[in-house]
C-alpha cells in the first residue's frame, strides 16, 4: 500500500517537472532593480505648500524686518 502511494507521488512529480523543463527556455526573466523605486511626489507637494504660505511668509517677514 505504502509502496504504491510513494510511486504514485513520484509519478506526479515527474508529470509536473517535465512541462516545467520544457517551458524554461522560453521564460522571460524579470529581475527586481537593485535600486529602490522612488517616485518624487514630494516636489509637487512642496511647491503647493510654498504657494499656499506665500502671503503668510510675506507678512511674517515684513513684521520682523530687522532680522531679515
Amino acid at each position, binding site marked *: 500500500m505504502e509502496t504504491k502511494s510513494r510511486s504514485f507521488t513520484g509519478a506526479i512529480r515527474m508529470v509536473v517537472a517535465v512541462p516545467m523543463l520544457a517551458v524554461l527556455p522560453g521564460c522571460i526573466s524579470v529581475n527586481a532593480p537593485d535600486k529602490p523605486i522612488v517616485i518624487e511626489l514630494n*516636489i509637487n507637494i*512642496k*511647491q503647493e*505648500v*510654498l*504657494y*499656499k*504660505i*506665500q502671503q*503668510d*511668509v*510675506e507678512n*511674517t*517677514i*515684513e*513684521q*520682523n*524686518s*530687522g*532680522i*531679515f
Partner: protein
Amino acid sequence: MIRFKSNGVLKVAAAVAALGLVAAPAAAQRDPAYQAARDAGQVGEKMDGYLGIVGAATPALTKMVNDLNIQRKAVYTKGASGAGVTVEDFAFGSGCKNIRDTAVGEKYQAPGGAWATRTSAPPQRDSRCP
C-alpha cells in the same frame, strides 16, 4: 470726544517719535553691523531661509549670524504653527522671498548651492519658489 482721543493718541505717537523710540516692529531697521556685513558680501541669504557666512568666518560675524538665525527660527516656528506647515517649509518659503528681495551686490545661495552675487537681473532661485 473722539476727536480729543485721536489727538491724544497723536500726541503720544509724536512724543514717542521725538524720543527716538520707534515702537512699531514693522518699522524695525537692520542693525548697522548687519547691514554693513550684507553690503560687504560677508553674509548671504541661503535657500533654507537662514543667513550664511560667505568667505572667512570671524568670531564677531559668526555670533551675529547665529544670533539672527536663532531669531529667524523663532519667527519661522511661529509662522509655521499659524500656517499649519513644517518649520522647514516655512523657512524655505521665506528663503525664496529673502533671495528675491536681495539688493544688487548682496550675496545669495543659488540652487546649485554656491554663493552668487545679486545683479539687477532676477536671482537664480529654486524652481519650486512661488
